[in-house]
């Protein structure tokens, strides 16, 4: 799990161009959207592309995305669940 969350943090920083943020700045349980990192709906869409590109998981409904991207940990859990299938 920790390996995956570390990988995810790096990928999020890269895909969303969070230049001034380092992986250690992101808490795995902190909210990504709203108050946390301050990401928005466009970032959510980019994360959906990330999931498909890097993890072959396709999300059809953007509303589903909001729950999955609550935090780095919820993202990691989602990926692990889907990779079992």
């Amino acid at each position, binding site marked *: 799990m920790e390996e995956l969350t570390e990988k995810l943090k790096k990928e999020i920083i890269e895909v969303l*161009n969070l*230049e001034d943020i380092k992986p250690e700045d992101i808490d795995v349980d902190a909210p990504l959207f709203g108050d946390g990192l301050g990401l928005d709906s*466009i970032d959510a869409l*980019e994360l959906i*592309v990330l999931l*498909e*590109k890097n993890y072959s998981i396709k999300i059809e409904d953007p509303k589903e995305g909001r729950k999955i991207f609550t935090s780095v940990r919820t993202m990691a859990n989602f990926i692990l669940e889907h990779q079992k299938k």
Partner: protein
Amino acid sequence: MEAFIRGIGNISPQPTFDNSAFLEDVREYNTARLQSIEPDYKNYIKPIQLRRMSRLLKMGVTAAGMCLHDAEVEQPDAIITGTGLGMMEETEKFLNGILDNGEKLLNPTAFIQSTHNTVGAHIAVMLGCNKYNLTYVHGPVSLENALLDSLMCLSERPSDKVLLGGIEEMTEAHFIITDSMGFWKKGPISNLDLLKNKTPGTIAGEGASFFLLSREESPQNYGQIRGLSTRFNPENQTIAVNHIEDFLAAHKLNIADIDLVILGLNGDPASDAIYEPVTGYFEGKSTMTWYKHLCGEHYLASSFALWLGARILKNQKIPGIIRLNETPKPGKIRNIMIYNHYKNIYHSLILVSSC
């Protein structure tokens, strides 16, 4: 329809975003592509917004911010922009994504920022400005159309403050394509010797220039836009002098009233030939200047010319680097005529005067 220029902000291939200087330091280019000298955007835009902004978006938003700061205006009453090619970098990014990935795994950010109204819209979001917002996209008269709309807004609501902007970018890919089509000079050149180079083609430029327009008198005003005229000439007739004469007559001016002329000469002999009757017309009567060696040729180049006119009027100084003739005009520089054409099809004329 008139307006004062209260504030300016200009990011261009010359060191122009620092308003304290005025072309004392001029950048020489030995390539046919002039690229903007950009500020450190971290000083102007928050990191959370900056991170995903394209270059032209950063330029536009920052030049607009500089202009509002210069004008000491926090909230404009209208945001009106012009761009010819629009957000080229983002358009290329998304298009290349489609072509490389077979329409799969595409990034939404590039698409969202590829729309022509991106800069105008972003400025509105950043300021929380709910007012009139428009983007004109008719190539070489995009600035003139946006300016006309600005003047109309001020005529409809004289207390308004209108933020007018011209933005255009040149990308590496677009430069290569257009270079292969013969748009640009070949071989070793210097932008400062552009007029001496009689080979076909010109030099490519870009920029973001913003102006805060209002009807309010103030010692801070740079100048007053007193007239605007465009002509659409697809039949390629010889119209420039006639255009100028009609304009002067309509404004009850004569040639002696025009102290300085800013011409859109660009070093391409075919294009510059269109200005010959104009230079003949003003020779010996007005100081003639040019500017495209400083900003390059692009659809919004006349926005650089408007910046130049505003600065000349405020500083009452003519930078040596823009002079075409030595005709001295003693006393105050009162009226400046900016004349530009594109392929002899689109002609534009702006009259800007001292306050």
